[in-house]
């Protein structure tokens, strides 16, 4: 693991019992105590994740808004400063280059958060296409990102001494909005977003302050049941929430309509890269769908497992794992449109298992509180 990139917290992870694995060129914590215990902490109380490997790009300038809007599928033409949207980034063929969060920090200042594995691709995609009225800066290396997720996340922030004077602003923060704060010497962008399906926050800050933030949050959250959590739990949590992941549901061979994120395509907003292809696919009929599957037992249909209807292959599992909340196997799969409501089976290493088509999320979404 000598050539791997490290985050500002890698040494802390290693010293505190994390099992470190390679992920997108970074050495990242897979788990500390165990995936299931960390998963449960987030569903029942709260957890913190180091996701500093994510890429942060900054687009600024008088044309920043229009230029970003021309590149992404969602619409930021009226996105107010202090708010964010989730979007796809497509190529001319309408295929997914990446999925992004786009924050409007000011009218002429946008922050793009991309997957670590796509950092170089997304950076050059933007750099080659932005007009002269917008400039791009890759701030990934100097930016840390910590996700605080779970129903007690707000309690942790309330108990964090450094944030006491800003408690009211934090309590007022709506889902998919953000606030820039200066907490003593620590500049922080606090965002009410996440990837677990629970109430939670994502905290962006200069990497030099990451260790202080991490240790202060763990201390503030001790009485709330806060645990450090690894990428293993992040994956089972997002899968239970029905969220797509690049390299699984999303890649350059599928459109947003086929990969479960069709709602981020705004065909009526005006021209954008990929619009013609996406419009054509919508008019011709979307050939494949991403569906949610539940297994009856504890067995797991993993990525790549074939999906069958009456013995014929109709698709493939894109993500599959054991659901710690439901105590059975769950999966997302891409299947031909005709098969999306049929009786299906999955091929698990040669054995066929019946699966039930479910409406995602597998576990109720509580990002806005109890539903």
């Amino acid at each position, binding site marked *: 693991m000598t050539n791997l990139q490290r985050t500002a917290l890698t040494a802390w992870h290693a010293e505190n019992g994390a099992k470190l694995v390679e992920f997108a060129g970074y050495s990242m914590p897979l788990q500390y105590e165990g995936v299931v215990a960390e998963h449960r902490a987030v569903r029942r109380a709260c957890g913190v994740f180091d996701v500093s490997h994510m890429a942060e790009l900054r687009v600024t300038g008088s044309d920043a808004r229009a230029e970003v809007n021309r590149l992404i599928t969602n619409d930021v033409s009226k996105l107010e400063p202090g708010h964010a949207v989730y979007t796809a980034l497509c190529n001319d063929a309408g295929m997914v280059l990446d999925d992004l969060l786009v924050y409007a920090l000011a009218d002429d200042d946008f922050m793009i958060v991309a997957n670590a594995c796509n950092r170089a691709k997304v950076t050059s995609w933007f750099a080659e296409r932005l007009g002269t009225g917008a400039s791009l800066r890759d701030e990934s290396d100097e930016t840390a990102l910590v996700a605080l997720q779970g129903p007690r996340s707000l309690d942790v922030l309330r108990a964090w001494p450094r944030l006491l004077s800003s408690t009211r602003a934090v309590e007022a923060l709506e889902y998919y909005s953000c606030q820039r704060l200066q907490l003593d010497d620590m500049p922080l962008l606090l965002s009410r977003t996440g990837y677990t399906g629970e109430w939670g926050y994502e905290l962006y800050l200069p990497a030099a302050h990451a260790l202080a933030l991490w240790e202060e949050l763990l201390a503030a959250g001790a009485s709330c049941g806060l645990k450090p959590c690894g990428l293993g739990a992040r994956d089972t949590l997002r899968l239970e929430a029905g969220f797509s992941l690049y390299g699984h549901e999303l890649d350059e061979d599928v459109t947003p309509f086929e990969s479960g994120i069709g709602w981020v395509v705004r065909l009526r907003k005006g021209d954008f890269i990929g619009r013609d292809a996406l419009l054509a696919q919508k008019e011709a009929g979307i050939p494949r769908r991403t569906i949610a599957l539940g297994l009856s037992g504890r067995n797991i249909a993993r990525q790549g497992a074939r999906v069958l209807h009456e013995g014929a292959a109709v698709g493939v599992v894109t993500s599959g794992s*054991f659901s710690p909340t439901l105590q059975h196997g769950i999966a997302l799969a891409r299947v031909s449109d005709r098969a999306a409501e049929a009786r299906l089976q999955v091929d698990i290493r040669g054995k066929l298992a019946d699966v039930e088509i479910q409406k995602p999320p597998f576990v109720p979404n509580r990002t806005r509180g109890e539903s």
Partner: protein
Amino acid sequence: MRPDDLKYSREHEWVRIEGGEAVIGITDFAADELGDIVFLELPEAGQMVLAGEPLGTIETVKAVEELYSPLSGEVIESNPDLSEQPEKVNADPYGDGWMVRVRIAELDENELMDAAAYGEMVDG
């Protein structure tokens, strides 16, 4: 930590010999390396198993691993509790987490290690 009365395989199984029968499980080292075990596929009574051949599969959240048989024989029973509580393997690998009981047909003890030799292999 590792019981002295067991034999250990290079594939991280343990074997407890009880007369003509053997009880098989995986070691604490294997259980920790695998992480949370969420599903086990174990053989049924009457099935013949061969030394070095797959005996079952172990599913964790992240991966699936084969369980290899350290000996040849006929399966008497698999641990019935593990179908609903596979986490017992992580919690108590040498006790409640036992996996399979086999009637021994052939066992090459030279292929197995004692606790000290196994400990040297995994802990260095």
